[in-house]
């Protein structure tokens, strides 16, 4: 009896000692990915992950926050949160000039942005175990980047939660996102205001625990 208990304990400790799952936060530029990453990191570790900005491509390097322990219903789930640069198929430095940036800075930002997108794609193919796909719910979700990225995530058989962000803004339309990706669960939230985060954490524990 003691032997069986020992074996059972060994097996359960083997599984509990698993590396935390790496959950990538993906989506187009300016969807609020870093705001969400910071919200999750601050809620459970007290630290932020990276700077937020309304200028596209503020995040130009994937950033990982390790061992984020989320407690739900008496259990805890430990994940690594990976905040990734917004994915796009084009980067035009002249768009940064509209944000009062000098040409040299705009060119540098666009170069770093392209490297960041390539890095994000590499992470998606090789290094993440699940995805939080963040969309701005005031924008049309029927874009090529969304179609391709969700297709890529599905082809890797990665668990994915679609997050309809920015519900605090006028013009937010969660139903449009649900209709665009009916094969996946969509959760509304405002990462900025912290609205509906309890449900988001419940689902993170359910999907990635």
């Amino acid at each position, binding site marked *: 009896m003691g032997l069986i208990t020992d074996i059972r304990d060994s097996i359960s400790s083997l599984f509990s000692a698993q590396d935390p799952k790496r959950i990538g936060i993906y989506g187009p530029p300016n969807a609020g990915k870093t705001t969400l990453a910071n919200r999750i990191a601050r809620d459970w570790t007290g630290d932020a992950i990276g700077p937020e900005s309304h200028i596209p491509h503020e995040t130009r390097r994937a950033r990982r926050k390790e061992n984020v322990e989320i407690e739900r219903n008496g259990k805890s789930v430990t994940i690594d949160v990976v905040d990734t640069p917004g*994915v*796009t*198929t*084009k*980067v*035009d*430095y002249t768009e940064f000039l509209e944000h009062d940036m000098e040409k040299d800075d705009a*060119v540098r930002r*666009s*170069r770093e942005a*392209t*490297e960041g*997108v*390539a890095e994000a*794609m*590499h992470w*998606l*193919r090789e290094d993440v175990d699940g995805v939080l796909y963040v969309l701005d719910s005031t924008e049309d979700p*029927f*874009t*090529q980047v*969304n*179609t*391709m990225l*969700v*297709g*890529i995530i*599905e*082809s*890797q*058989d990665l668990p994915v939660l679609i997050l309809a962000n920015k519900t605090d803004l006028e013009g937010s339309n969660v139903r449009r996102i649900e209709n*665009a*990706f*009916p*094969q996946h669960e969509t959760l509304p939230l405002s990462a900025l205001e912290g609205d509906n985060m309890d449900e988001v954490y419940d689902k993170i524990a359910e999907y990635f625990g």
Partner: protein
Amino acid sequence: MPEVKKADDDGVQIDLISGERMESMTSMEKIRMILDGVHEGNIVILEEGLSPDEESRLIEVTMTEISPDEFNGIEIETYPQSGSTDSGLLNRLMGNDETKKLTVIGPANQIKTLHKDETLISALVSRK
């Protein structure tokens, strides 16, 4: 690719690539063919599109080739997958390949999507 006559300066060249032609190519050969065409200012139309993995690599390679004032990247359009075409592992094992979808790719500064839904892609193509 065999030698083809180049489009006149006042036109836009469109290359329609059959699924049969793509079948024997490796992923990198497909990506190179697409980006070489796009760099020349051509619109490339693929009868059967790319696999998700190839799309991911196309984005990655495109990013490495973006150069200020020369090449801003690509515009790419395919029909979105509808909910009924959930391409799960079982579907793929059964040979139900959902990746075969018409795909249009062009230089980002020459092609602009006007409308897109599950059954229609409407785009405006301009000269360089």
